[in-house]
């Protein structure tokens, strides 16, 4: 069944495919919701970054738009004091463990964090919180990409991109604050059997995995 449903987002009536997640319904209709981890190609949402909160009328608490299927007659608000506050806290938390170096960063101007800050008028600076730099070594071993784990926001796009390329070189390791994107045994990319396709750098929304100044064989559309 591929019916369509009509719902209201920020006062606008929108008609989308049944079963679509709210986040995509909004984005496809030009309504912005902050997001980092959501991935259209995945059936089950990770709902990990906790940025995409919205209000749905009749629900006591804000919900994550990337995990919420649309429903006919649903009334959604992408802005409210609660939603902005949650997104603001999640954003500042991410910044607190993201090495801020925009001026020198390869992702300057294309970085998703900058976009979120712009759209929501968040400061690109850690004000209330302590900075949590993890001081992990930068991996410069690959001829095509540079990996700076200190900038990673753990969205998982690179891991999925690598898996789709048939590589499965990148993955998550560790738990809690130690969770990180790495390779088998923590080896450098060059030693880990990376084919150099560059899919991960193309997928990374921030400046953690960036392409070196070479032509990528797989320079796919940047998100």
């Amino acid at each position: 069944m591929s019916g369509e449903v009509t719902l209201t987002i920020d006062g606008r009536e929108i008609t989308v495919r049944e079963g679509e997640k709210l986040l995509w319904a909004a984005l496809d209709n030009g309504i912005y919701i902050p997001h980092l981890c959501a991935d259209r190609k995945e059936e089950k949402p990770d709902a990990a970054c906790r940025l995409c909160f919205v209000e749905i009328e009749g629900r006591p608490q804000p919900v994550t738009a990337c995990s919420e299927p649309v429903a006919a007659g649903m009334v959604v608000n992408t802005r409210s004091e609660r939603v902005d506050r949650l997104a603001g806290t999640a954003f500042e938390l991410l910044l607190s463990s993201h090495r801020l170096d925009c001026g020198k960063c390869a992702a300057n101007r294309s970085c998703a964090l900058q976009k979120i800050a712009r759209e929501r008028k968040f400061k690109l600076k850690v004000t209330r919180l302590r900075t949590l730099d993890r001081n992990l070594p930068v991996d410069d071993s690959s001829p095509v990409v540079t990996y700076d784990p200190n900038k990673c926001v753990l969205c998982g796009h690179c891991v999925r991109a690598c898996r789709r390329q048939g590589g499965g070189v990148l993955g998550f390791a560790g738990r809690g604050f130690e969770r990180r994107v790495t390779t088998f045994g923590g080896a450098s990319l060059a030693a880990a059997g990376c084919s150099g396709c560059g899919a991960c750098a193309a997928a990374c929304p921030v400046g953690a995995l960036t392409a070196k100044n070479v032509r990528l064989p797989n320079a796919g559309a940047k998100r």
Partner: protein
Amino acid sequence: MSKENQAVSAAYAGLQQKAALVRQSRHEKPLLLVGTATCGLAAGAAAVLKTIKEELARQKVEATVLEAGCMGHCYAEPLVIVYKPGFPPILYGYVTEGIASRLVIDFLAGDDPCLEFALGALEENEFLPALSDFPRFGVEQKIILENCGLIDPENIMDYIAHDGYAGLARALQLEPAAVVAEIKASGLRGRGGAGFPTGRKWETCLGTPADEKYVICNADEGDPGAFMDRTIMESNPHLVLEGLIIAARAVGADRGYVYVRAEYPLAVKRLALAVEQARQCGLLGENILGGGFGFEVEVFQGSGAFVCGEETALIASIEGEPGIPRHRPPFPAAAGLYGRPTVIDNVKTLSFIPSIINRGADWFKSTGTPGSPGTAVFALAGKLVNTGLTEVPMGTTLNQVVYDVGSGIPKGKKFKAVQIGGPSGGCLPESALDMPIDFDSLSGAGAMMGSGGMVVLDEDDCMVEIARFFLDFTQKESCGKCTMCRLGTRQMLDILEDITRGRGRPEDIDLLLSLAEDIKAGSLCGLGKTAPNPVLSTIRYFRDEYEAHINEKRCPSLMCQELIAFYILPEKCERSCDACVGSCPVEAIYNNADRIKVIDQQKCVKCNSCVDACPPQYRAVIKLSPPELVAEREKENK
């Protein structure tokens, strides 16, 4: 009666007959039960067991010796129960190897029941007080702990002789929907923490059509101060298993798992044995008791991650993935293990099932409160005279648990708070002691039933430190997937560490409150959603302690190591005793010109050894906070 139902009745009657014979033969000679659950073993039960066996051989006394589980009186381990014809069954506590030999020589070979070592009798009698005369007996009511410590957990026949598996036999003769209806009517709420109505969960699973369904017993017990589930599995594994088989029958599952922490090796061993014995008795496998229902169980060992107690993480773990929670809905009852409908219930929840099926929903509802029927099992630890396990009706007050069951605070210290529900729970102050405990009253007060761990804190325990301890735990145990929990708990922990080290800032309390609110509202799973509770409840009830740490750099309970110093009162030091000097692991204590002991503050590692070593008649070592007080005192004494 249908043919299947007749077959089930006949098969179960056969098992009962066999069990009755085993039981009868066992009581023909004296019987000794030694408590060898983990608590007993830690207190030396293995040596006691060995002594008893050797002494019996030496005295040529015929007796049966069995290893039983835990009766809940952990403070008095090792425990031994002696059944001797002509005497009431007697429970002995604090049994040493010496006492063990005396029991054999004087009581079994002779006729002196050594009452000086007895805690009490298990039945009313003329010789000695029975346990039922203890004040705690008036408060306790045992449904799931009823047989713990009294039966042999490694022999299924002992369980059957106590009407074990009668609930299953009955459930097999009912329609699955009728079993679900009975549980629903009983009002049973899940004992894994959240208190979700069990019947409703089963109903969803039963009503979701699927080619396969699963039932899982959640025995991950990750709360760092709780040991109820462990004790039940070690002491009466068949009870849990029977509950699980009934759940499977009710929802139509053909496979099940018991997910046990690998840190509980004895529980794993006893459960695996129970599964094996149940299979041999036709209580597991194809066509159980001839009733046409088939079910298989596997014991799965968890690998040490607290978050795996969360149901979706637990499922991921069984599927061979890291234990990372998934977004709900779908809830497991609709789409769980391998995407199939799956019922996940806690050990205690399942342990109630057999008696509810046997005695009916109304019987169950007659205990407890209307909103939370039945009993609650608590693991009592911390600053209590009688630590151990207890089971009380829901609605019992904290006062009764702390003072009647636990016999209050040792060493004449003052009660400060009780921590309930572990890392998801909170600390309740003295003013909450009169509150009747159930799921709803606890959440109202800012704590949570959680798993049932209850740690009593006295005046020496610092509330900021306990909050820091729990945040440290949740922060380490966060799966790390979602931002709020991975980084939010880390930020809160850093703030708390600053406060306990005297580096807190006045605005930190508000920052903690604000972060706590967002982490609760914004985390993906229950771990993050409840992690701030210990901080919120301690700020709510003990804000003055936070302020003392921040504003005066002082720990009022003299616990936070960096805010205290050890000091020897010159006027109290006996000079020639030297006990503290020898106790210090870093040689920080020296003699001054008058042979009075003095602590070198640079060397001191604040290990408390000298405080313990100083003989009680002097009590010359004290703690001071803030540490600068030492210099002031030293100057005064010049």
